[in-house]
């Protein structure tokens, strides 16, 4: 599959069908992947497909000028579709190299399982529904559901629906909905006061690096509201109150665009459980408006649209 990807990517560049190839290449640290953004047909030989390819590459589409051949997992393809809906990207300017995705391995979960840091591990190999981890010469086996990202365990579309070239056969997700929703359900079980305290405690760690916003393909504003000075909506200082306002508004802004790719939570250097916000917003959007982001490129964006009869019950 990897070789076919490289061949397709090379052909796209050679035939002038795209200006850039955006894919994954091995990163500089163990088990790490890094985006490869290139115009060089030799460099496409570095492209890889593996169970660690976390990044949602759709994020780069809004800044690259020209036509782009892009490697996309299920969730990434939905982000691309969402960008098409928002007229941020023209369908004819992207060549989607779709990858049926059986789920991505969460290295934090692996580290917790083995009680070792990633650079101390020998190998992590996926074998179907199992994962085999070696460390200090010791081999341990776990069900794959124990190491996949929470959002992967709730995946609704592992195989891109929108693609130009599909690399491999459509796949079924390995899901575990109760694990995927565990944190959110736990929060919902709490009464409002402790729930609020939970969030203001979590968000007090935020250092306002904006990685959550900057890895997010749905956060494509040229200028973010946090940077507005007249009026200044919130302070640039990382106080929990301002951090919380930022997250709430960010979530409202990406409602209907967020595909639950989980990148915000993964990128966060201070482990704020951001997916417990984005996924809940995803579910609210789905429940209230029967809308799921990035499923249909011809659908109107959530917030530009309305139905005559919907979500009335709270209005007096």
């Amino acid at each position, binding site marked *: 599959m990897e070789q076919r990807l490289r061949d397709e990517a090379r052909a796209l560049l050679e035939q002038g069908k795209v200006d850039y190839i955006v894919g994954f290449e091995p*990163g*500089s*640290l*163990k088990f*790490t*992947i*890094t*985006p*490869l*953004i290139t115009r060089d047909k030799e460099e496409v030989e570095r492209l890889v497909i593996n169970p660690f390819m976390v*990044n949602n590459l759709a*994020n*780069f589409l809004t*800044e690259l000028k020209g036509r782009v051949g892009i490697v996309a997992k299920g969730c990434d393809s939905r982000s691309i579709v969402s960008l098409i809906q928002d007229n941020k990207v023209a369908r004819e300017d992207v060549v989607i190299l779709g990858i049926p995705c059986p789920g991505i391995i969460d290295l*934090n979960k692996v580290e917790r399982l083995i009680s070792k*840091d990633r*650079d*101390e591990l020998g190998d992590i190999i996926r074998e179907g529904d199992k994962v085999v981890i070696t460390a200090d010469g010791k081999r341990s086996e776990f069900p794959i559901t124990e190491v996949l990202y929470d959002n992967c365990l709730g995946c609704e579309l592992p195989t891109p629906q929108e693609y130009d070239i599909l690399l491999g056969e459509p796949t079924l997700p390995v899901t575990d909905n109760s694990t995927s929703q565990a944190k959110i359900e736990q929060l919902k079980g709490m009464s409002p006061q402790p729930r609020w305290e939970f969030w203001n405690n*979590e968000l007090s*760690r935020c*250092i*306002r*690096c*904006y*990685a959550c*916003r*900057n*890895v997010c393909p749905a956060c494509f504003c040229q200028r973010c509201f946090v*940077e507005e000075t007249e009026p200044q909506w919130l*302070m*640039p*200082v*990382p*106080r929990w109150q301002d951090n919380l306002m930022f997250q709430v508004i960010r979530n409202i802004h990406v409602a209907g665009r967020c595909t639950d790719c989980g*990148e915000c939570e*993964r*990128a966060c*250097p*201070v*482990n704020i459980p951001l997916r417990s916000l984005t996924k809940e917003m995803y579910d609210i959007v789905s429940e209230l408006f029967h809308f799921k982001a990035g499923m249909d490129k011809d659908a109107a964006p959530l917030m530009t649209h309305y139905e005559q009869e919907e979500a009335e019950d709270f209005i007096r």
Partner: protein
Amino acid sequence: MGLINNSKKVNKKDIGKLLSQWSEEFAVLVPSKENGVAMMARWDGTDTSFLDWYRNTVIPPKAHFLPPMEEMFRFQKDKGSYQLEQPASDGQKQLIFAIRPCDANALAILDKVFEDAYEDPYYLSRRKNKLLVGLGCTHPYDSCFCTSLGSSPSDAANVDLMLTDIGDEFLIEGVTDAGKQLIAQTSGLEEATEAEDARAKEVKEASYHKVTRRIDTGDIGSKLLSCFEDEDYWEKVAAKCISCGICTLLCPTCYCFDISDELVKQQGTRFRCWDSCAFPIYTKMPMENPREEKWRRVRQKVCHKYEFYPMNFGIIACTGCGRCIRLCPVNWDITQTLNSLPAKT
């Protein structure tokens, strides 16, 4: 340089007692985890489990010298007139336990900036008030590259006293006068034997070789100068950067900050907080922005550390702690950039 002949030791089991003793004089900060995020935090008086997991913190200890945010002063408006009020100091002496050599070296880099020309009272008062107890690394990360920057996992250049892990015990060496004095005042420390001194030397030697990531810093400033205008190179290097602030905000040597005001009902506060050259708004002026494009900001980050700061202060503003590599969401690796600078044309 420790006093090789005069070193002490403490059994790891007795670290709690040692910290308790120090807590009588100091507010002791130790490696802690807050929802999995390692940082230096006030010791709770009992927990020494960090000895099992601690390699380095995510939040660099600079946070205790240049905090993520701080109040510079408050102001009150009364009939159109302003009264300014500075935050009071609690005068509490602090001790940071188990700071890594890279992070201690980073403070020496910050010192030069905050002592330069005009003294920064906030940083310097915190700095003067803290004792640094270093702990040499025995398990450096694969992202660490301190040995390329004239340092090592056992570098004691910028700590007050230095601990070396020699198995069941830590060897303790006084470095500064304050460190030696603390050792002299501390009861319950045993003299280290010659064999233990020798063991410590071996550990230090071995740890040096555990750092495998390398960069070539020879001539790095002039290499950067010669490719400063190479837009194609910087554009390519910057392509995958997402312009978040992780690598800079969590860098132990990055010191950029922002200043901002808040006024609520005649009561105002002037804050300062971490800022980052990765953000477009950082240099934005109303009419124009000299670093609007991403590649200019990436170039600034690299050149500041390896070209501009050394021009001003004589040393490279990076200690090789590797946080920027470990924490980057897209694995943007500064060592790869530095090792791939285009040759002079």
